[in-house]
């Protein structure tokens, strides 16, 4: 167990939790991120495999996930369908698309600098975590210093009031889902680089983990309350604890029980702290 590994292993979950916390702050939820990770993995690896440039492949991956993010966002904000249902729809659709595109087989490409993204360290910090940190800082700036940031909280606590103030609620809601999709694509690209192949099931289960990380980090399910920074921290902590269970010699069945206990305990702690007081942001 060392810090380098913890950071490396938690990068994907951390960035997904970051995106998820933004969505949850607007009183939404995004179940599609896990499947999007898989889809992006397949798209990027597929393009790399057909000898397209690395940047083009990365860009296409981001574009794919952004498309589905916008798609969910538009349906949620314009047609006013519950986010849970819409993203459940996009979740199963994209999961299926990932499998269809690769035919159930993993995709690969000839080694190039894309592979090394996951291998390099920057002053002892994994490059992947550096990338995640950059996004983290950007999101913190967004939350604290832009009107968009305040609107995210505003949509979560009182959407109607915000709309009456003349804020383009629909636009900002769509943007939040777009961001979540983008973050999913970043996670997907990072994982693809890590496993040096495109895998149609690599993102399975990440959506629930991201939601759990965000919730344990204090993001309220009804929106408007919580700080993405804690979601980020709790993602790192959860990864460390769950990985640690296996390395401490617990067998898989006991690991399952342990994860259950960690989740409940984390949420319990969170509840105790919430009673004391919750930070505004």
């Amino acid at each position: 167990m060392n810090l380098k590994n913890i950071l490396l292993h938690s990068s994907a979950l951390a960035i997904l939790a970051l995106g998820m916390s933004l969505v949850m702050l607007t009183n939404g939820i995004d179940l599609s991120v896990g499947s999007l990770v898989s889809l992006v993995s397949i798209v990027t690896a597929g393009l790399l495999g057909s000898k397209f440039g690395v940047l083009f492949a990365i860009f296409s991956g981001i574009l794919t996930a952004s498309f589905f993010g916008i798609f969910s966002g538009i349906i949620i904000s314009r047609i006013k369908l519950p986010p849970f249902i819409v993203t459940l729809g996009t979740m199963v659709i994209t999961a299926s698309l990932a499998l269809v595109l690769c035919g159930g087989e993993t995709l690969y490409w000839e080694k190039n600098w894309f592979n090394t993204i996951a291998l390099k360290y920057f002053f002892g910090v994994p490059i992947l975590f550096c990338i995640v940190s950059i996004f983290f800082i950007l999101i913190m700036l967004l939350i604290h210093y832009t009107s968009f940031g305040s609107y995210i909280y505003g949509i979560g606590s009182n959407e109607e009031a915000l709309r009456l103030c003349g804020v383009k609620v629909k636009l900002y809601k769509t943007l939040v889902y777009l961001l979540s999709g983008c973050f999913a694509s970043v996670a997907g690209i990072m994982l693809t680089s890590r496993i040096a192949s495109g895998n149609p099931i690599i993102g399975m289960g990440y959506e629930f983990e991201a939601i759990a990380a965000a919730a344990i980090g204090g993001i309220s399910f009804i929106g408007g309350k919580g700080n993405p920074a804690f979601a980020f921290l709790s993602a790192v902590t959860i990864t460390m604890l769950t990985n640690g269970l296996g390395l401490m010699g617990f067998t898989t069945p006991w690991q399952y029980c342990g994860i259950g206990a960690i989740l409940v305990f984390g949420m319990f702690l969170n509840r105790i702290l919430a009673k004391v007081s919750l930070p505004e942001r």
Partner: protein
Amino acid sequence: MRRNDILLRFALLIILAILIFLVNPNFGKPANLINILRQGALLYILAIGMTIVILTGGIDLSNGAVLALSSCVAAIAMERGLPIMVGIIISLAIGMICGFVNGVLVTQVKIPPFITTFAMMYFARGLAYIFSHGRIIYGFEKSFRFIGTGNIFGIPMPVIFSLLLLFIFYIVLEYTSFGVNIYAVGSNSESSRLVGINVKKVRIIAYLLSGFLSAFAGLIYTARLNAAEPVVGASFPLDAIAAVIIGGTSIVGGEGNLFGSAIGVLICTVIINGMNLMGISSLWQQFVIGSIILIIITTQTYTKSAKINIPILRSRKIESFEK
């Protein structure tokens, strides 16, 4: 849940069935239709529990794992030579205990249902592995297997059970005060509390029922397959949620009914059956189900807004599943 919502879904089911039938006449064989009912029955029993929980504004991600745990323990009990009835009672008790724990964590400790049941999913799955040592327990007595494989007048037992449960829970939801409370808690828990409904109790009972039904489905599953395994049911929670949503139950609670869920389950089962028959690669199954979810919910919104004032609906959607 308005009548035309159900009609819309029923129409979709009929259209799907006719389309599949036109492409592949084998679909219409009585044996195949009974197949669909039998395969849907297991999912439907889970969907009843899921509907009740969602009606109270919660969600249950643990039903597949609870199913695995309860059926494994019951199977071990029967393997050790305990009478069948004892095995069944143990299994149902375990299901109810898991549901009760979910309910208590949600209402008393105030952990969001999503996280509670997600944690319970891991916990129950772990216990299922621990009790069964990861092995598959197989070979049960004929009399036990009857509840999964038997027929009465040509109707498979799982179908009879699910119809029976539909009947019982329909009565409970529509004609008892408990049923009214479930809807009330789901649509506005704060005002329910103010009018004197014991919100916590209603919620705990909802999770308890979901646990009970998961265990019940587990028994039928075990009997039907002649085996109990700790790995079963990883996809059941999402399957059940998808069916319930297609059935028109509002994810934020307070709206929906069991007939809708029944149609939702049938739509999902018919799609998978039809795709199997037509030889369409199963990779597309999820795609079709996802599209159906989006299409039907969108259509429903438009048919609603055509008649009813939209702002009323909006005020309802502000609530979420943490209350």
